[in-house]
Structures are given as structure tokens and as C-alpha cells.
């Protein structure tokens, strides 16, 4: 009945090969272009690229707009995720599905859709135009585009995190007399913080890399709407070195961001990042 040790170890070996080889292939495939990008740039070229006139304004604008968009996403997205995670109503299920749409929309289409909504002849835009508010081609348009494409990533993470929250803890807190608001702020938020932070990091990375919708909806103007990805594409037309330098900056910033939240943030809290809220409750 029981397999002999040698047969079992052979089976283990085959299984290990069957899982590790495809895994290694995919990791190599994803890392190769990034490594090639870094090795394809000399240190001198990188420094010269950084001094390119497009770089400074784009970097500042990207930092500013993504901070604004992330703030909006977290402030508006957290209550939404809380509602979605706690309700089984049909309307909210549809909402949960509909809110994921920006993930599958091609970014350029998202940009056109934003124009149809907020543009001069748009649904809301035509009305805004009459009261003197012009959204397209402004920094506000960059932020709106980032919120549109990046919010679903935060909401996904936040909903998953709230759903893993042990309902017994909520019930106990309620029976001890805590108000729903107190339960949310004192029980749910602290326990779900790592999951929310991960969602926010992915969302931020997505906002930082946003290109298509911004180009369509906000245009490309240095200092006003030209974010890092747009500057990279503009530089690509004339100076490959500046484009490479900017790309490396973008990769470094995004990677640092993901590492900060996935790696250090979660581990210092004594949590395996993959299990999030659940483990916190056991601790």
C-alpha cells in the first residue's frame, strides 16, 4: 500500500521538477527584459539621461499626481470595499463586478471614455463647461485618469482583506457595546491594515505607470500633464538614453514601493504577507 521510500522520492523529484522548471522559466522571462534594460544603460548614460530637461518636471508631476490619486482612492475606496465585503445584496455584487471594468478596458479606450464623460461635449463635461470648469488637458485630468485605472486594484485588495476578517471579532465587539463606527476604526481597520496597504501599493504602482488614458484625456504637456511614462515615450522619439534613464527610475520607484509594502511592511508586523488579516487574528 505504502510506496517504497525510493519510489516516493523519485515521485517527489519528478513533482519538484514539474513545478520548479515552469516556475523558473516564467520568472526568467519576466526578469530578463528588466535586467536587459538596466545592463543596456551605462552609468554615464544614466546620469546624462537624468539631466534631460524632460526628467525633473515629469518626476515631480508623477509624485504629486499619484499621491493625490492614491489619497482619493483610499479615502473613497475603503468605505466602498467595506460595504462590498459585508453585503450579499445583488446590487452590490453587480457593483463589485462593474467596478473591475477599468482593469480590462484598453487604456486608450479608458481615455476616450473619460473624454466622453468630462470632455467639452461629454455627458458631464458639457455642463461643467458652461460653469467654466474645463477638465481635459489639466493636471486634474491626470489625477482622474489615474484614479479611474488604479482604483479597482485597491478595491480588490481591500474587499479581500475585509472578507477575511473574522466575523466573531466584529460580533464580540458589538456585544461589548462598540458602535459600528468604533468597530470599523478600532477592530476592522487595524486588523486589515496590511491587506489594505498591499492593495494601495499595487494601486499606486498602476497609477505611476498609467500611460494610455492620460495621453488621451490629459494630453502631453511638460510640467502640467506629462507624467513619467509620457516623458519616457516623448524622450523615445529623440533621445533613447533619457528614455532608458527614466525607465530605470520608474522601475526602481515601483519596485521600492512594492518591496516596502510586501516585504518589510508585512514582515515587521510579524505577518506572512500572503495570509494577511487571518494570521493577524491568530497572533
Amino acid at each position: 500500500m505504502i510506496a517504497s521510500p525510493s519510489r516516493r522520492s523519485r515521485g517527489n523529484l519528478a513533482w519538484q521538477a514539474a513545478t520548479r522548471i515552469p516556475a523558473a522559466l516564467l520568472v526568467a522571462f519576466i526578469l530578463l527584459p528588466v535586467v536587459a534594460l538596466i545592463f543596456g544603460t551605462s552609468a554615464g548614460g544614466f546620469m546624462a539621461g537624468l539631466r534631460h530637461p524632460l526628467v525633473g518636471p515629469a518626476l515631480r508631476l508623477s509624485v504629486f499626481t499619484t499621491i493625490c490619486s492614491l489619497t482619493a482612492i483610499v479615502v473613497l475606496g475603503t468605505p466602498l470595499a467595506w460595504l462590498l465585503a459585508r453585503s450579499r445584496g445583488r446590487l452590490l455584487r453587480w457593483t463589485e463586478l462593474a467596478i473591475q471594468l477599468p482593469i480590462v478596458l484598453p487604456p486608450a479606450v479608458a481615455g476616450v471614455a473619460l473624454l466622453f464623460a468630462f470632455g467639452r461635449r461629454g455627458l458631464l463635461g458639457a455642463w461643467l463647461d458652461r460653469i467654466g470648469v474645463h477638465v481635459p488637458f489639466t493636471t486634474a485630468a491626470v489625477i482622474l485618469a489615474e484614479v479611474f485605472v488604479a482604483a479597482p486594484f485597491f478595491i480588490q485588495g481591500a474587499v479581500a482583506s475585509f472578507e477575511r476578517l473574522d466575523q466573531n471579532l466584529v460580533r464580540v465587539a458589538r456585544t461589548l457595546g462598540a458602535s459600528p463606527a468604533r468597530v470599523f476604526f478600532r477592530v476592522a481597520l487595524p486588523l486589515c491594515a496590511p491587506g489594505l496597504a498591499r492593495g494601495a501599493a499595487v494601486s499606486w504602482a498602476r497609477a505611476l505607470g498609467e500611460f494610455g488614458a492620460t495621453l488621451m484625456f490629459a494630453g502631453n504637456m511638460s510640467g502640467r500633464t506629462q507624467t513619467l511614462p509620457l516623458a519616457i515615450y516623448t524622450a523615445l522619439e529623440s533621445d533613447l538614453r533619457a528614455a532608458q534613464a527614466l525607465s530605470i527610475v520608474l522601475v526602481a520607484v515601483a519596485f521600492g514601493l512594492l518591496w516596502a509594502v510586501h516585504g518589510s511592511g508585512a514582515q515587521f508586523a510579524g505577518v506572512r504577507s500572503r495570509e494577511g488579516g487571518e494570521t493577524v487574528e491568530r497572533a
Partner: protein
Amino acid sequence: MLSAIMCLATGPARAGQTQLVVFAASSLREAFDKLAGQFKRKHPGVEVVLNLAGSQELRLQIEQGAAADVFASADRRQMDAVKAGGWVLEERIFARNEPALAVSSASRALVRSLADLPKATRIVIAAPQVPIGAYTAEILAGAYRKYGPEFQKKVEARIASTELNVRQVLAKVELGEADAGVVYRTDIASARTAIAAVSIPPELNVRAEYPIAVLKGSRHPELAAAWIELLTSSAGRTVLGELGFLPPTDDARKRP
């Protein structure tokens, strides 16, 4: 799975079918689509594969070793770079294009000439890094000299965006988000919505030359030469002319 990807990477070549791979600037889309049909009738069994993108992207692909037979560029700069890399067998100018103002349907009564440009509340042009953007900068510099500092101040204040290719400029005008933009005359001809073409005074305008070349890596140089011949034949001239392209030299223009 890997072999399937390899298959896709080498292109959709069917057995027994010869392919002519033409790399062309995106502004040539309509013209080359039409001419590909004519070429196929003349050369049965040959398939024309068009790769349409910005001239700069095509140049990068050629320099990275893309298998192409013909390269048609929308400006000299990119062709010269490809030539400097030793990729070009023979090269010639086959058409020219002319920048013009594209004016949205709502603003066509306001903007009737280049001098009216300050009446547009929102102007969109291309970035100086792309060919049409460089031409636009040249045209505007001339216009600033001619129409004075007041004109310059107003125009500069109303430029809302510097787009990364000419079709993006056109899209913004077509959507009505911009009142006016500088594009090629052929782009306005290809637009499917009602936008107006306003000519730029000839003394301020520039001519964009379209060079075409047979590439060194070509597997079918004789077919590549035949493609260029078709473009420069009277049939080719007619197709290009209908779409708003100008013949390569002014002499040819005067010919009936």
C-alpha cells in the same frame, strides 16, 4: 507552447506564398492599403504585409534586425539614421506632404486662416520630437515673426498639449476637445468626421518629404523594387494624389 510562440514570432507565412514586408509610416496607411491590392493583382501569389507605425518606431525595429523588405519613412531624419546604420540598398523620395490646420466643426467659422489661430480657445500640436511637431515649430516661428508678439503670446497660452503623434492631434480635433491643430493635409482627408482644412500660407509652410528604400536584409529585393516602381508609376501617383499627397518634385506637379 514555446514552439507555438516561435511560430508566431516568425510570422504567419503560409506555405508556397511569397511575402513582401513593407514598413511604412502610419500616415501612409490608406494609400498603401489601396496599393497593396493593386500590387497583388500584378504579382499573383505575393502577399504584401504592411507594418504601419511611427517612423521612429520602425527605425528602431529595423536597427534591431526586423525582417523587412521596404521602409517608407515620413521624414528624412529617420531614413538618414537607417542609412547611416548601413541597412539601405537604394533610396528615393516618392511623395511629399504638407502641414495644414485642422479646425473642429464648432470653430470653423472662427478660424479661417493661420492669422485667426489666436481665436481658437484650445490649440493642440505635436511634440517637437516627432516630425510633424518639428514642422509645426518651424511654421509657428515664421508666423510669430509675421504676425507679431501679440499673436505669439496668445497662441502659446492656448497650446493645451503636445501630442506624440499626428493621429493623436487629429483625434483631439475630431473629438472637439481642441479647436485647432497642425496635422498633415492627408490626415484631414482621411478623417471620418467633419473637420475643416485650413491652408497655411505657402511662404510660412514647409514640405515634408517621404523617402522610401529597399532594405539590405530584403529576401525579395526585386519585389521590393517593383513596389517602389508601383508607387512612382502614374497609377501610384493617382492613389497618393487622391489622398492629398503631393508628387516628389514641383515639376511633376505641373504635369497633367
